[in-house]
């Protein structure tokens, strides 16, 4: 699975992109976020407030219960501020 972090999430976590395979129990976006938060304090701090997170799977916005599969591109980022 490819993970991408943007904007101040990227700055807080300290990496922009990583390849990783979460354990089999991590089946949806919500479970992935919880699992990431347990990795270390940087993740725990960056992902603390779920309402301030947006998630896209394979470059499409998804909800909290969207299922995940190996090979997915999962991006986690703050609300957008373009335009």
């Amino acid at each position, binding site marked *: 699975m490819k993970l991408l972090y943007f904007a*101040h999430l990227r700055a807080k976590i300290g990496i922009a992109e990583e390849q990783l395979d979460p354990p089999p129990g991590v089946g949806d976006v919500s479970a992935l976020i919880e699992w990431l938060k347990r990795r270390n304090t940087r993740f725990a701090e960056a992902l603390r407030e779920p309402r301030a997170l947006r998630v896209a799977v394979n*470059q499409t*916005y998804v909800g909290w219960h969207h299922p995940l599969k190996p090979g997915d591109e999962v991006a986690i980022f*703050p609300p957008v501020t*373009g*335009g």
Partner: protein
Amino acid sequence: MIRVQREDFDIGIELSALTRGKTGIGGVASFVGLMRDVADGTPIHAMTLEHYPGMTERELQRIELEAQQRWPLLASLIVHRYGRLEPGDRIVLVATASAHRAAAFESCEFLMDYLKTKAPFWKQEETPDGPRWVAAAATDDLAASRWRKD
């Protein structure tokens, strides 16, 4: 048509190319977003626009398609820049063309509202106290919500 680019754009050239040969067009509404030198009372020296290559293009295409389905558009264009910008620089151009002006105005505003809440861009401002990330505006969510068909 959508484009995501580092370079500046010329509105006159863009709109001429958009409407060329399409003599059924009666009006072109457009919006240009410019970088302001102040935000929430703080002077801003410069700004860096980060984006999500790939998803940005997909979202802009999706938003444009939705506008084309909702209004009788004869042409449309979204150009959004990324990278470092200074006050007065152009950030975004949205243009919509239709036989009549109401559809052009409405769809142009729709595109800007959706782009502001959906296109994966993030602004980091350079202030006298150092860099800061721009927070999403609740007014943008409100503006986008009025287009929802319930």
